[in-house]
């Protein structure tokens, strides 16, 4: 905490979430003594619960959200020579996953809700396009009905990057409902978080389910029969044990985040144009993995809040198409005006489930005072 502030509003909540660590450790102790560390009962249980939570028939536990994307794309046959469309205002892993398959990432600008602008997708489609990876960025849900229709019209696969949107819905349908698969992350900062890296793929296809189970585990049909050269990307049993406990908290976590977001929305509603709230769609359940606002004098505000103990962040100051890693893709400043402007004006406020009312109001007051409101 910086001198002068009397409240500290942390971005991360892991110390609060696991304050009662003993009950978790009891489960871990049981696992350690069972020696069942690889794809055992805890993983099967977790997969069944996760599938049920998502309203999907199949869930496959893997090593990370990134791996969930890579395995999904590769099992659909995406590889060298193919193009995959996504948006540039995402965590780098979405694009890294596409590049890891050997395919070329192709960007389409984002919209007011931080998801891919469906309007512009068809212009980016070429004969080499194989798939679209819409990102349900920040916990919002992309315009999936339109994206699915475009994909069907052009014979493309859809892999939903749902890493930030566990429990998100559109038109009453959960994320994962539209894609061939959807990729989830259970990274420690996600709405359903475990104690290290982990991810899940959901699918409605029995065939993809079978193939992905092989593909995540060395292509092994059984101990001695290798059907394909595969990855080793398994959800750790240890993480599944933690996940089995935390999955029961997912509704609580999601609801608390939504409540915090609604309070912020209400508090900042009259601060335009200094503070602009993204358009909220009534038919979407946005789960606010990140609570982001477009603000004037963003960097000054960030410093101001940091000095007052409010742990605000920027996701992310450099859009993916302008990262050094993207150099060979040949994009330039100006190619994606929405994503680029967002990179300069977005700020992310702490909105997690362990914030107290006092902390939320402190943050609100700090921002109002910054803009002299």
């Amino acid at each position, binding site marked *: 905490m910086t001198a002068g502030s009397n409240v500290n509003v942390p971005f991360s909540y892991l110390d609060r979430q696991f304050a009662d660590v003993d009950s978790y450790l009891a489960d871990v102790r049981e696992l350690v003594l069972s020696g069942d*560390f690889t794809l055992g009962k805890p993983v099967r249980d977790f997969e069944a619960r996760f599938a049920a939570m998502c309203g999907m028939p199949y869930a496959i536990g893997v*090593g990370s959200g990134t791996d969930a994307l890579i395995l999904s794309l590769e099992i659909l046959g995406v590889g060298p020579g193919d193009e995959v469309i996504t948006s540039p205002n995402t965590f780098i892993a979405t694009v*890294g*996953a596409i590049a*890891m398959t050997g395919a070329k990432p192709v960007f389409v600008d984002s919209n007011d809700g931080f998801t891919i602008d469906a309007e512009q997708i068809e212009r980016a489609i070429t004969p080499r396009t194989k798939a679209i990876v819409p990102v349900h960025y920040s916990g919002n849900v992309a315009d999936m009905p339109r994206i699915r229709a475009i994909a069907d019209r052009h014979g493309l696969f859809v892999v939903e990057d749902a890493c930030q949107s566990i429990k998100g819905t559109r038109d009453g349908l959960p994320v994962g409902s539209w894609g061939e698969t959807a990729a989830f992350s259970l990274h420690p900062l996600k709405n359903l978080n*475990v104690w290290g890296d982990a991810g899940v793929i959901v699918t409605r296809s029995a065939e993809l389910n079978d193939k992905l189970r092989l593909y995540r585990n060395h292509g*092994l049909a059984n101990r001695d029969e290798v059907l394909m050269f595969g990855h*080793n*990307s398994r959800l750790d049993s240890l993480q599944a044990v933690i996940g089995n406990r935390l999955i029961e908290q997912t509704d609580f976590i999601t609801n608390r985040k939504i409540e915090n977001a609604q309070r912020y929305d209400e508090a900042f509603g009259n601060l335009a144009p200094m503070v602009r709230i993204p358009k909220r769609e009534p038919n979407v359940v946005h789960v606010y993995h990140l609570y982001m606002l477009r603000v004037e004098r963003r960097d000054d505000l960030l410093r101001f809040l940091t000095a007052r103990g409010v742990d605000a962040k920027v996701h992310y100051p450099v859009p993916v198409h302008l*990262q050094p890693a993207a150099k060979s893709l040949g994009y330039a400043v100006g190619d994606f005006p929405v994503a680029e402007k967002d990179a300069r004006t977005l700020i992310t406020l702490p909105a997690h489930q362990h914030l107290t009312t006092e902390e939320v109001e402190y943050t609100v007051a700090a921002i109002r005072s910054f803009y002299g409101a």
Partner: protein
Amino acid sequence: MCSFSGSITVTANAPARTVPYVNLAAAHTKLKAELLEAVAAVIDSGQFILGPQVEAFERAFAAYTGASFAVGVASGLDALVLALRVLGIGPGDEVITAPNSFVGSASCIALAGAIPVFADVGDDYNLDPDAVVRAITPRTRAILPVHLTGRPAQMDRLMEIARDRSLFVIEDAAQAVGATLADKKVGTFGDIGAFSLHPLKTLNACGDGGVMTTNDRDLYERLIVLRNHGLKTRDDCVEFSGNSRLDTMQAAMLLVKLPHVDAWNSQRRALTLQYRRELNGLGEVVLPSERTGEYAVYHTFVILAQRRDDLRRHLHERGIGTQVHYPVPIHLSRAASELGYRVGDFPVTEDQASRIVSLPIYHGLSWQDIEYVCNAIKTFYQGDEA
């Protein structure tokens, strides 16, 4: 038989004792308190991704192997894939490896986009350097020797072959942590060493994990970035990559275990001496040999046995677990069908695949267990069970 315990009656239905092939639970009982303490410390810190425990494990593992640097990753397979990628090996390139290994030794090459090329092994179960020379083509970029069963491959000759032809060497040391050749640890001969920390390994995480070793600072610095989305800092992505991090939780537990590895390896070696004493002179089996100057760590204790499948059934009926590592060589697996190999391409590997059997060997196996196993093997061949 069963002279050690005359009170126990042996029948087919109720074995005198059971000797499972592995017992992971037993291995963790002694360290339980320390392991849980390490886990609790990670939880208290709230830092579950990378951080001090991962760095401490990397430093300790580098010091243990004598390598300059170590990098923790998500699995042994990822360690191999990242090694190939960081060396720039990809589509169009060929990499030579052994066909008698776990599939990971070949799938890593396919995952990197390159072509796995196999060379036959010798009676040490490791790459035959002469066969490697014959497998080299203008497209060969690297040799990927496997220290299978925990026995060091012939690194002196393989390194010479690689040096002469400017090939990279990536050591698959997944089964061989602590093994040495002329007092030099495996994983430090080639450009990069790749270790698995899978639960069945001697140095084992409670889940998947891997670690890489190298003496090259440039490779090390790139690997640190490649295993973490290509991120140099939170906001600076210098190279597209995946996510392959050793979990902090696993690193914390591995730090508890690493100091015990040498003791665990010498316990395994002591168990092999017991096997050798008991099975000495039995003509139907061939025990693993050892060259002078090498220190094998016996991840598996593999013998060549006549009528192997019958022997396994016989042992199974007596409560003794065995395994075959591996019954189908990689070049004959369905995964390799596109590579165009056939039965007969690697006669030594294929002959071994029909005769090898791995006997129980693990921390906690008792002198009596081994005597029981060996007596059962002897009765199988000598038929004097009574």
